[in-house]
C-alpha cells in the first residue's frame, strides 16, 4: 500500500531528533530518522555495545474480553494458548491461503488481555481485519496513538536499562515482559528486538517517551550507547535474517515459503489459513526464502531479478552490505528444488549478471 498523501505522521521525539541533527526521511508516511551519524557506526554500536531506536510508529492493537484468546487463536498461526501472562510470541496474521496479512508480536498481559504489535504501514488494515473476525465477548481497540515504543538493543542494554528500573532485569528471559515503572512511568519492558542482539523493547505513554529517550542516552553514554536510525535497524535485522513485511513477506507469500514452519501450529485447532497451510506442509512449499552471499562484486538490492539455472526466478527481497560481515548479503525466494545452501545463481545488478550462492542463515549469530 502506498503511504497516504498529506503531512507526515511524527512520533513524540521528532523535535528532539531535529535538534540532534538526525537525517529524517518519509518511512511509510512517518517522518523518522534514517541515521544520526553513520549507518555502519550505529550498526556496529548495537553489535558491540548498545543502540537506542525510536519505533513509536509501530502499531498497537489491544484485544480484551472472555473471547480474546479465541480471537487471537483464530487470526494467528502460532499457538497463543502457550503464552502465560507476561509472555510474548512472534506470529503471523494469516490469510485464508496462508499468506501474510502482517507479521506481529503478541503479548499476553492477562488471562483475557492481549496486546498485538504490528507494522506501522499495516496498522489500519490489521485492525479492520482482526475486528472483522471478533465474535462474542471481545473488544478490539486500535491503541496505536496511546503507545510510544523505544528499542534498546545490544550487549550493554541490560546494564543500561537496569539503572532506570526497580526490579532485576537479568532474570527476564527472552520473549518475557514486565509491566513496571521505568524512569518513573509505568511501562511494558519486553526482552525482544529486531537486531539479533540481546535487548529490550519498551512500550510507554507517548508523553513520557522523550524523557525516557534522553535518560537512556545519558545512562548509556558511558557504555557506548548510540542513537540509531532505521538504516541500522534494517542492516541489523537482515544480518539476523529477521523478515521485513512489504519486502520479504506480504499477502502473496506464505508463512511456510518464508521458512517459518516453527510458528505454524495447526495442532492448536483451526485458524484462518490452517487448511491451506496443512496442505502446503504435506506437499512442501513450491518455493523457499533463502539467504545468499554475493560471489562477484556488487550489492544486491530489493527488486533485482535473479536467475537460477538460467531461468528467471523472481527477485531479491532484501539486500545490503552487512556491516558486521563485510559481505554483500540478501534474501530471495527459490524454487524448492534449488533452495539449498551451495546453489549458485545470478543476481542481475543493473543489467549485469553477478554470481551469488545460497548460504545457511542467520548470516550473523551473536556470540554467547
Amino acid at each position, binding site marked *: 500500500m502506498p503511504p497516504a498523501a498529506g503531512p507526515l505522521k511524527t512520533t513524540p521525539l521528532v523535535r528532539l531528533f531535529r535538534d540532534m541533527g538526525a537525517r529524517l526521511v518519509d518511512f511509510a508516511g512517518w517522518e523518522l530518522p534514517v541515521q544520526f551519524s*553513520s*549507518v*555502519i*557506526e550505529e550498526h556496529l554500536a548495537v553489535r558491540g555495545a548498545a543502540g537506542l531506536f525510536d519505533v513509536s510508529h509501530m502499531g498497537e492493537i489491544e484485544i480484551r474480553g472472555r473471547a480474546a484468546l479465541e480471537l487471537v487463536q483464530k487470526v494467528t498461526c502460532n499457538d497463543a494458548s502457550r503464552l502465560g501472562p507476561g509472555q510474548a510470541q512472534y506470529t503471523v496474521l494469516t490469510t485464508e491461503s496462508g499468506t501474510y496479512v502482517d507479521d506481529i508480536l503478541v503479548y499476553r498481559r492477562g488471562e483475557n488481555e492481549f496486546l498485538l504489535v504490528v507494522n506501522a504501514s499495516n496498522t489500519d488494515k490489521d485492525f479492520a481485519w482482526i475486528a472483522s473476525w471478533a465474535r462474542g465477548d471481545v473488544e478490539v481497540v486500535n491503541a496505536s496513538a496511546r503507545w510510544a515504543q523505544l528499542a534498546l538493543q545490544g550487549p550493554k542494554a541490560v546494564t543500561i536499562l537496569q539503572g532506570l528500573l526497580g526490579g532485576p532485569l537479568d532474570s527476564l528471559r527472552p520473549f518475557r515482559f514486565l509491566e513496571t515503572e521505568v524512569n518513573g512511568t509505568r511501562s511494558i519492558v519486553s526482552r525482544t528486538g529486531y537486531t539479533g542482539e540481546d535487548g529490550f523493547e519498551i512500550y510507554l505513554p507517548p508523553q513520557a517517551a522523550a524523557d525516557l529517550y534522553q535518560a537512556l542516552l545519558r545512562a548509556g553514554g558511558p557504555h557506548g550507547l548510540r542513537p540509531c536510525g532505521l*538504516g541500522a535497524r534494517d542492516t541489523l535485522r537482515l544480518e539476523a535474517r529477521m523478515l521485513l513485511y512489504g519486502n520479504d513477506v506480504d499477502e502473496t507469500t506464505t508463512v511456510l515459503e518464508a521458512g517459518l514452519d516453527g510458528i505454524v501450529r495447526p495442532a492448536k485447532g483451526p485458524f484462518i489459513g490452517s487448511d491451506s497451510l496443512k496442505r502446503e506442509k504435506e506437499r512442501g512449499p513450491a518455493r523457499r526464502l533463502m539467504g545468499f552471499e554475493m560471489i562477484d*562484486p556488487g550489492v544486491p538490492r530489493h527488486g533485482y531479478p535473479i536467475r537460477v539455472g538460467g531461468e528467471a526466478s523472481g527477485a531479491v527481497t532484501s539486500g*545490503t*552490505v552487512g556491516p558486521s560481515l563485510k559481505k554483500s548479503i540478501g534474501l530471495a525466494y527459490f524454487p524448492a528444488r534449488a533452495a539449498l545452501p551451495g546453489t549458485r545463481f545470478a543476481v542481475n545488478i*543493473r543489467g549485469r549478471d553477478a554470481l551469488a550462492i545460497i548460504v545457511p542463515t542467520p548470516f550473523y549469530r551473536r556470540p554467547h
Partner: protein
Amino acid sequence: MSQGDGIYPDDLKYTKEHEWLAVHGSIGTVGITHYAQSELGDIVYVEVPAAGAPVVGGEEFGTVESVKAVSEIFAPVSGEILEVNPALAAHPETINRDPYGDGWLLKIRLAEPKEIDALMSAAEYRKYIEEEAN
C-alpha cells in the same frame, strides 16, 4: 547541513551531479563532492570502468553505493580513463573520509579541454547546493 570553508576547494570545478574535477595540464582527476558523500552516507561499493575506457562529458559512467542507496556518477568531461583509484575496491569508505584527497575516483586524459568552461566554480557550486537543499 552546514557548509564551512574548505568543504568545496576553490581550485576544483564542479558538476550539477556533484562530481569535482581537478585539472593538471591535460589530465583531470575526478571525485564526488563532500555534499555527495554526505548525502549518500557510508559508501560500501564503487563501480567504474577500467583504465582505457572512454567517458563522455555529462554521461553516466559508473556508480557509487552506500548502505542505503545507489548513485550514478557522471563524467564532468570527455576523455579516456587513465587510472582508477586502486584503494577504493578494498576501502570505499575512503570517499567519506577524504572526498578530495585519498577518495579520488579516477584520472582522465582530457579530450575536449573547452568542456571545463561549462563546469561550476566553487562559489557557484556552493550556491547551487544551497538552492538544491531548499
